[in-house]
């Protein structure tokens, strides 16, 4: 905090009040409700509910479809992070090098970033439809593509739909990270090391570590939460429920299945996962990266 501050007994609370009010009413009230739901069992007709202890949690752990969603979410975030990160980095490195047309490339490569995941999903829908779909035809000719029966094909569908727009986000941040590296460092390294590729991996890439790490977290959160709109407009979890993410499954069970207890328990499990990632981010990785 500042050494020099205003002295006042009440005006600080005037500045804090608007956001805190919104948080209390629209965030903390529902969060408390989520915890209440997670520990109560409602009877099938919605007439009454009773305290259920950890029954809802035991139920989701004994439910194989929960583990299917868990497995898919892990695979999905890993693959999306890897694909979008490496393509984004590759393109950013090239765009940083070229002399001509830099800003044209930049503009054309970043604009898919602004498109909503749900819109991307609707678009992907057309490319994978049996009737019009170019990608559907292409893959079908290659190996008999059929996403509503074959799990692997459904994975390909949602991975392509989910990765596309996220390449832009990775590109923007990697390019900004590359441009922040001082010219003198690069010039000095050219004298020491002739090989372009070796120089990239020993000098440039380590200097990009903060950006890389930031993007890993961004990509994981994207795959966890933002892909909701993509799943809901593409496979809806098909073939069975193999392409449901954890968030999508919680929504389906709660909103469509009206099983508030199970949805609450799933939300709390998800909060724990996000909490673990956040702690990992602050404690473990931040300490290992050398800034500057």
């Amino acid at each position, binding site marked *: *905090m*500042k050494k*020099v*501050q*205003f002295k*006042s007994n009440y*005006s*600080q609370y005037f*500045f*804090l009040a*608007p*956001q805190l009010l*919104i*948080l209390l*009413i*629209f*965030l903390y009230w*529902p*969060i408390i*409700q*989520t915890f209440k*739901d997670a520990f109560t069992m409602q009877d099938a007709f919605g007439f009454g509910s009773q305290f259920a202890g950890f029954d809802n949690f035991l139920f989701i752990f004994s439910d194989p479809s929960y583990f299917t969603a868990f497995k898919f979410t892990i695979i999905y975030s890993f693959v999306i992070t890897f694909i979008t990160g490496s393509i984004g980095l590759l*393109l950013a490195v090239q*765009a940083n090098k*070229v002399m001509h047309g830099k800003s044209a*490339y*930049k503009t*054309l*490569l*970043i*604009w898919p970033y*602004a*498109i*909503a995941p*749900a*819109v991307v999903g*609707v*678009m992907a829908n*057309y*490319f994978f439809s049996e009737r*019009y779909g*170019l990608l559907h035809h292409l893959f079908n000719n290659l190996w008999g593509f059929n996403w509503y029966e074959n799990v692997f094909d459904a994975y390909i569908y949602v991975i392509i739909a989910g990765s*596309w727009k996220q*390449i832009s986000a990775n590109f*923007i941040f990697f390019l*900004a990270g590359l441009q*922040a590296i001082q010219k003198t460092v690069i010039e000095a390294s050219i004298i020491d090391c002739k090989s372009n590729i070796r120089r990239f991996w020993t000098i440039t890439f380590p200097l990009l570590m903060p950006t890389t790490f930031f993007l890993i977290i961004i990509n994981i959160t994207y795959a966890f*939460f933002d892909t909701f*709109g993509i799943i*809901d*407009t593409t496979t809806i979890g098909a073939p069975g429920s193999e392409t449901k993410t954890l*968030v999508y499954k*919680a*929504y389906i069970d*709660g909103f469509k299945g009206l099983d508030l207890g199970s*949805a*609450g328990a799933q*939300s709390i499990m998800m*909060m724990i996962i996000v909490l673990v990632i*956040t702690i990992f981010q602050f404690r473990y990785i931040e300490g290992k990266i050398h800034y500057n």
Partner: protein
Amino acid sequence: MTKYISSTINHFILSIGLLIMVVPIWIIFASSTHSSLFINTNGLQFFLGDNFIDNYSRVLFKQSGFFNEITALKMFLNSFVMATGIATLSVITSLMTAYGLVYFKVKYATFIFWLIFITLLVPLELRIMPSYIVMSKLNLVNTFAGLILPISASAIATFFFRQFYKSIPDELLEAAKLDGTNSWSFFIDFLIPLSKTMIAAVFIFMFVFGYNQYLWPLIMTTSEQYWTVVMGLKTMYGSISDRFAFVIMSMIPPVIIIIFLQKLFIQGIFQNK
């Protein structure tokens, strides 16, 4: 010579990148200018047709939706109100919170900081059902307030502004105090002008974020009067070329904003680093 070859390789890789990012949208756009009949018999198109004006004006002004109560134009208006509301409110509240936390002695400041921080762990998607119940208890279903308020507190924006205020030298406040500036006019006359770039960046970010909301409007609007563009896409029934045209139109506002304001946006994000 090697320089020439390596720059050719750079351009080649970038062109492949461009193909991946631009061609899908081009195909949808080109297809949206053909009649549905043509698409149904010939599939997706690479080249422009001549139904552009027909298709787009039909989509904009035709009553659509499940009960035929809304036009695409109205959906754009709704999306615009929602996105502007979210962006404005989140900029104002996070500016104020950051100011209160940095420039005043606040009791329980750490507790308040964590209260804001924890919200990062609980995105809307995780509290969707209880949020709906809360909103219906408050009678906010099918209102703009209901669409805007729950998404308008941004912890990230608050931290951005907080970091920025902490980096402003103490001498500024000392000098202002000597001139007899009070806390309100210091905020309005000094800090807000100083944080203009960041305000613009946060506003852009939150506008696109608000415009692109899908799940929340889907749940909060049972009346078609409040449908927004992004949620309306999935539920809109119409011929295939109408849907193509609507997809293309739906991406225009956020894409224009990002393209024209990209410099500002990127500057604002990295000003803090």
